[in-house]
């Protein structure tokens, strides 16, 4: 059977990474921005898994690392959401441009 070469997968992950970054740079809604970051993290996950599967199939470092990333991403998301909620309380908005009080 012919399987997908590593480069394809890497291309996918990189694309995903930059899509995420693009989202982070352009979106104004904090939740959306958070989601874009999750995209970036996931692209990293794909990297790890792919490397592990293709290059070093005998050890499981990559897989474990991706597991931990998922976990921590969850934690991060939880805290971030909490903060965003609090921000909404004080600013009555979750638009990132409304939270630019401190500058210069």
């Amino acid at each position, binding site marked *: 059977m012919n399987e997908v070469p590593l480069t394809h997968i890497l291309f996918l992950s990189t694309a995903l990474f930059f899509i995420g970054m693009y989202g*982070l740079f352009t979106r104004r809604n904090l939740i959306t921005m958070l989601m874009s970051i999750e995209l970036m993290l996931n692209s990293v996950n794909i990297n790890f898994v792919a490397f592990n599967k293709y290059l070093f199939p005998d050890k499981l470092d990559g897989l474990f690392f991706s597991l931990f990333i998922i976990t921590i991403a969850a934690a991060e998301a939880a805290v971030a959401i909490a903060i965003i909620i609090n921000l909404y309380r004080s600013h009555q908005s979750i638009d990132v441009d409304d939270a630019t009080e401190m500058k210069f």
Partner: protein
Amino acid sequence: MSSSIFILLRQELLLSLLIFILLFIKIGKERSNESILNLINILLVVNLAAGIFGMSEGGIFNGMFTTNAFIVLEKNILNLAMLLISMQSYAWLKNHKQLAEFYLLLFTSLLGMFFMISSGNLLMFYLGLEMSTIPLAASANFDLAKRKSSEAAMKLILSSAFSSGILLMGISFLYGTTGTLSFDVLTAYISNNPMQLFAFILLVSGFAFKISAVPFHLWTADVYEGSPVAVTAFLSVVSKAAVLFTFTSILYKVFTPIATVWYGVLVVLSITTILIGNLFALRQDNFKRFLAFSSIAQVGFILIGISGSSQAGSASLVYFVLIYVFSNLAAFGVVSVVSALAGKENISDFKGFYKTNPFLSWVLTIALFSLAGVPPTAGFFGKLFLMMAGAAKDNYGLIIFAALNMVVSFYYYLKVVKAMFMDENEAPIQKLNVPGITKLAMYICMAGIIITGLASLVYDYIYSLSIGI
């Protein structure tokens, strides 16, 4: 084996114990804040003491967690900083409802740092890093009511998430090119092929974000300004120090094969950092913001020291961090007292401060002189030794640049002194009665500032422990 775990992990275990005790306090019956604070401070003293006594060297979890005398020393410094911070935020926490949570967050973050420092593996390092970052983001938002506080927290969590994304990308590339995550093995595979260089740079930028080196520093000032003073102090001293320790050890241990490259990177970073830090610090009026930028400039000097990549390099780093703990925390101590009791955080509010609060003024003055590097304070030695370590590379352009920037930094430190001593002000900050424990903390800082410099044995001790390339 089993017993050795308790020895090697003792600082981490102690900290976890503290965390549990806090939880029990939380769920237990109501106590007065004072009593809780005193208890916690005592516990912190114990924690510090227990850390200091007894050496331990070795690795566990097959090399995921390694420790040695030097690392223990670094952790002790962090413990000390933690203790000082908690002593100084007494006035602020005395009538704060969630002080237990506050300590929970900080302790957790500290625990994360400990693991990060003694990590022998990229995975462990990542875990430690996140474990130290996420609670901080939460605690940055600790003044729930304040608009600025929540804004700061938002900025911190988003940027740090982004940076960890970048960092992870780097790690994944490293893994991809070497097939391993443990530092010892990694070194063998490191070479300067573009892929690895790219990975390395991604990694470095992750670090640079944490130590807020230019151009990865932009979050710093805002977060410092927004978050409560205690948290700011923790950010600017403890977390920065921890990351610096880790950064140095990784550079020296893992990336030795491409030392020339990261020397270049460090030089570039230090130049930009010092310059931008100084230029921004020149025109700040908010004290926390001012300290943020000045600390950015300090990091630039630290990077010069690290770039020495010698035993003296890492020694001068730890030495400077120790001094930095004393001087910066003394400064933050004064600021936190003033902001807690008088609610003022601007430099212009400090005009005529000496008339009403001579003690605090002297503390702040000495702290600032130490940050500026004026003898006989320890800051003088710290900065000089950093630059001496850097000068070992015969890169005198860098030294001249740094030396001249020291003059610029003098200007803004002296400006604060001028405000306190020389400027007239019809309505200065009224006389503040500083809590005894905070005063004690300040005295400790003063003693530290004087002794650490003049008593050479401190440096010699650090030097004897430290490892170069």
